[in-house]
């Protein structure tokens, strides 16, 4: 028993202290991975903020955006043109979703909208496969993927680029929500649909805008994850990595998605590297959920989620 306690409570920390450079590398790896998760989580947050809908199709939107981009690149489009066209496709998709899926379901219970996004998920998956094929595609838009060493710590250029991109994206989104007219309208819609409508905020326009922004976030996430693993259908599964981030950060908070991503990323890497070998490894997937659920015990609304107080 004492051996077990030593292995769990003492040995990992001794290991960390004994190899500090490696610990830093693990922490950096966790930060980079966490920001990659945040990129996906952001898409969920945006749509949830605007409509209170958990968008089941967010992972597939990432896949669809990446497939469109790489499909255009494969057909000879220059990177800038391909990016612009992909943005146009995602905006068009947002418009179509508002017109065909959301508008007919206004005032329906949230669960109906959630079910609609499940349908959207399978439609986009099938349509994407039909349009662009199911093969793995290399995504090369010039992001370097080499590593360099700083004081014994190895840093990957692709992951560094992704981290910087995520940071820039979050800053832009925060500014968008706080300082622009549409951003404020969006927050009003998120608070209360009917109240927002009563003061003249166009709900339909807001939905198109927010799904478009979520589409652009999906492009960025698709770019980064696609550069890492190639563009393929398993990209849609990265939504699973965003879920613990959302549980932890709250479904309505952009900063929550980032901080949640960082905690999950760092936590799961530390868990896998230092405690994983005790149980045969491969713990990081479920460890992330354990971490998120542990936080929920303390803050049920998530780190940055709004505390809901209802009169009963």
């Amino acid at each position, binding site marked *: 028993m004492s051996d077990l306690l030593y292995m769990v409570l003492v040995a990992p920390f001794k290991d960390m202290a004994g190899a500090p450079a490696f610990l830093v590398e693990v922490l950096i790896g966790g930060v980079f991975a966490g920001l990659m998760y945040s990129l996906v989580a952001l898409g969920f947050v945006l749509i949830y903020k605007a409509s209170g809908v958990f968008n089941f199709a967010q992972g597939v939107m990432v896949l669809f955006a990446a497939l469109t981009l790489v499909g255009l690149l494969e057909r000879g489009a220059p990177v800038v043109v391909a990016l612009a066209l992909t943005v146009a496709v995602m905006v068009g998709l947002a418009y179509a979703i508002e017109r065909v899926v959301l508008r007919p379901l206004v005032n329906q219970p949230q669960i109906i909208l959630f079910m609609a996004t499940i349908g959207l998920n399978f439609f986009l998956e099938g349509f994407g496969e039909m349009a662009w094929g199911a093969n793995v595609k290399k995504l090369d838009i010039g992001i370097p993927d080499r590593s360099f060493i700083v004081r014994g710590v190895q840093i990957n250029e692709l992951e560094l680029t992704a981290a910087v991109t995520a940071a820039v994206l979050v800053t832009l989104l925060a500014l968008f929500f706080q300082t622009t007219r549409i951003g404020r309208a969006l927050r009003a819609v998120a608070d209360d649909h009917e109240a927002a409508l009563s003061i003249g905020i166009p709900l339909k326009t807001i939905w198109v805008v927010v799904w478009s922004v979520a589409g652009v976030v999906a492009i960025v996430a698709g770019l980064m994850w696609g550069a890492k693993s190639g563009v393929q259908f398993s990209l849609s599964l990265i939504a699973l990595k965003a879920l613990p981030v959302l549980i932890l950060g709250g479904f309505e908070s952009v900063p929550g998605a980032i901080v949640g991503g960082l905690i999950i990323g760092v936590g799961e890497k530390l868990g896998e590297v230092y405690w994983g070998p005790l149980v045969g490894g*491969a713990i990081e997937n479920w460890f992330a959920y354990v971490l998120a659920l542990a936080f929920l015990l303390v803050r049920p609304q998530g780190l940055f989620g709004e505390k809901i107080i209802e009169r009963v």
Partner: protein
Amino acid sequence: MTWRVALVGIVALAVAAGPWVTRVQAAGEIFIPLLVYRTGPYAPNGIPIANGAIDYFTLVNERDGGVNGVKIAFEECEDQYDTKQGVECYERLKTKNPVLVNPYSTGITYQLIPKAPVDKVVVHSMGYGMTATADGRWFPWVFNFPMTYWSQASAFVKYVAAQEGGMDKLKGKKIAHIYHNSPYGKEANPTLEELARRHAFELTLLAVDHPGQEQKATWLQIRRLNPDWIYISGWGVMNQVAIKEAAAIGFKMDRVVGNWWTGTEVDVIPAGDAAKGYKSMNFNAPGAGFKVHQDINKFLYDKGKGAGRRDGIGEVLYNRMVVNAMLNVEAIRTAMTKHGNKPLTGEQVRWGFENLNLTEKRLEELGMKGMMRPLRVTCENHEGNGQAFVQQWDGKKWNVVSDWIEPIREVVRPKLEAAAVDEAKKLGYTMRDCAKEK
């Protein structure tokens, strides 16, 4: 309202259209169900697998008029590489009286093993599935020739030893096995552990959870461990990410060796030039330069009857499934030598599998000389006498870089027989006496 009616109509048509590829069974034919995964996260692997099998069965029908005049009927069922869906597919297609099934998935194979003797349907898990079923005394209905995961792992260790200068040079070397955290991925572990004990090399086992898109923690541990060799048992996106991660940390790519499900064209594409030098095990030669490929082009693709793209011919997984389908056909042909040239039962085809003797001469006749090794299956040994080789990616194509490697059978077989007893007991099987079956 009109567009909704149109949408419903389109969906109804799509459903009515049914499976992608079907060669409807007629009286006097042999039926083989095809459990495929052309969609979903594993589709990049599933598509060449399905196309290779269909092309060979169609070739036999088109070129030869079937197996000794008996045509092969087949039908695809999409399972998305999902065990539950795969079993559902099997149950649905079972009503068409199949004689054999290729599950194309270790998970599905595990589920079909107990069903095989009940349904009288041969399970052929070629190079995958449960290694213990290679002991035909306990598992008469399951075949995994030409090799098992355990034999493959031992061939890998022999290859490493050859590169290091001999088996004695393995002592003190560090080998890491990065594996898909599933029954498939874990299959090689007991053999590697046994060989590590015998040859005193340091083995580290690192599991990667499905789907394997994020492996940073695993590769951080590799960085710290700094092994001499890495062996990967992956599938799907896990492979692409592993190869990219290996390149990203600057690991010598010619010391990273995948198993034969971790060495296809799609695995190396995302890494681009960084994948140059990466190696993998294989038991079927890559490339489209064999006589059988000429026939496939002439009889199928030139006539618009090919199952896939012409440029997919010769890919690693495509070729593997051409070999798989050929082995199915030759087992049926063997069964016909005893039971006559007519549609056979599963029981009769099982005899054909168990008495398959594929000679060099026969491989040449089939236009597949050099594509695989001659093979002999027996009542006791359902793995056969297969051998593996190592191939290496040069940035454009796979090249064979080793001789055929004989597995370390003196290690593998006793462990396999012991495991067969354990697994068979779970199913309540008794051992048969092969001497009485000759």
